[in-house]
Structure formats: C-alpha cells, structure tokens
C-alpha cells in the first residue's frame, strides 16, 4: 500500500538530545505533509516513546523517516532500529504495564495505539526494529477491546 518516495532522513538516536531532534523532525515532517494538530501530536508522541525505547533498551540506534503516497493520502513512515539485546516476548512487551526499565510501561503498547500501522521485528540478540506509519485524512484506527 502506497509508494515510497525513498528514505528522506536518517537520524541517530544516541542521547536524550537526539530525542529532541527526532521529535522536531517528526513534527516538521508531519506538518509539511498536512497532518492536523491532533494527528501531529499523536505521531510526535509515538516517535518520542519509540526513540526512547531505542535509546534506553536498545542502547541507541537510528530513526529513518519516509514519505508515502496512497491516492490523495500522504503517509509518514518511521522506522526505529537498534542492535541491542532484542525482545524475547513481543506480546508481553506490547502489553500495558510491562517494563524492563524505569518507565511506566506504556511505551510500545501506547505508541501502537497512536499510529495507523505498527510492525515490530525482534529476537534475542538480534536487535529490534519498529516501523510505524500514519496517514493524513484517515480516521483513527478502531479501538482495541479493553
């Protein structure tokens, strides 16, 4: 779905200063693509959660940002990659309240609720890649059962 216009930016995630660059980049990219204020806020918040995971649990990594087009809708795809210890139980990591660090345990599961598409690849010792995409002009995805 959608045609990629190629990788537009690759940002390092190695310090909490880099988290600010990530947030600023995502904010500007989303605004340029025509995302509304609430959708921008959701996407920047999701990016902040995922970038912090990359930094804290993955030991640092990168975020790649791509611009997608699907008909009249524009998409922003963000890919967070690290070569850290990886995640053994992805389902558990996605559940609210799960944390292996000092967070609130809302990072992964919370970020998933804030975007349209969410994919994660990880295995112990093989690092973690999280890819999220949101689109302009689309309603939020249906709520999960609580």
């Amino acid at each position, binding site marked *: 779905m959608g045609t990629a216009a190629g990788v537009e930016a690759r940002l390092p995630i190695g310090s909490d200063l880099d988290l600010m660059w990530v947030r600023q980049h995502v904010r500007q990219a989303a605004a340029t693509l025509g995302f509304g204020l609430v959708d921008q*806020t959701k996407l920047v*918040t999701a990016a*902040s959660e995922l970038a912090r995971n990359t930094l804290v649990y993955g030991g640092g990594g990168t975020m790649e940002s791509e611009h997608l087009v699907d008909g009249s809708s524009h998409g922003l795809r963000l890919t967070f990659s690290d070569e850290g210890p990886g995640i053994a139980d992805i389902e558990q990591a996605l559940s609210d309240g799960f944390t292996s660090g000092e967070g609130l345990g*809302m990072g992964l599961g*919370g970020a998933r*609720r804030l975007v349209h598409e969410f994919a994660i690849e990880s295995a112990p010792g093989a690092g973690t890649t999280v890819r999220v995409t949101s689109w302009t002009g689309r309603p939020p995805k249906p709520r999960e059962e609580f």
Partner: protein
Amino acid sequence: MNEGFAGHPSAGRVPVLRLGRVLLVTIQGDLHDSTAQQLQEDLSQSVVDSGATGVVIDISGVEIVDSFLGRVLAEIAAQSSLLAARTVVVGMRPAVAITLVELGLTLPGLDTALSTEAALELLDAPVPSARPGAPRQERP
C-alpha cells in the same frame, strides 16, 4: 508579583518562581530529559526551603507530553504531596490531553486547571463550600 527565584535558573534549568505560598513553574517548548529531572529535584528542594503549600505547573507551552514527562509530572505531584504541598498542572493543550488518554496515561493523581488563575483559586480554597453548587456564603 513574584518574590524572587526559589531556584537557580541557568542553562538547562526551568526557573521556579515564588508567589506567596505558591511555587509557579512554566515549562516552555520541548524539554530535555535531564532538564525535566533537574526540575523535579529543584522543586522538592524549593518546596522545603519556601514552605510552599502549592505548586502550579503551566504546560500551555508544551506541544507533547510523552510517558517520560508524564511520569515526571506525576512524581512531582507525589513528592510535593509528601512535603505538604498540592500540585496543579495548568493549561494542557487539547491535543495533548487526547494523546495522553490514547497512550493510556490518564495521570489520575494529578490535579489540573485550565488557567493559572483557576489553579490559584483551587489552591486558596480547598474547602468544600468553595465548590460550585454549594451554598453561597454571605459576604460583608
């Protein structure tokens, strides 16, 4: 009318202003993680030093609150409460509130107000008779 800085504003620090028995903090823009943690430390010290009974944190200039900043705000409220001061978070943007709920972070321990004025009223009048709907007191 502020009575002076209770904190020591410098690069990477959020100033803590004192207004009578209330400490007033205004967070502007994107906050560095370490600046947020520094604010948390500064505030607990300021509460003790000043004997403040209230802390007002204005986040109207904050574009996003993620789980990290949310946790810092909740912890500031919790530690202030242990030090006999009540915390009110002021001016949250609607988009931030929508995002926090979807993120699953409703921060139940945090008192909020829509404006600094409303927060100061809340801190001055914690008595039940100040609630809307309560019988009005005769004024001289």
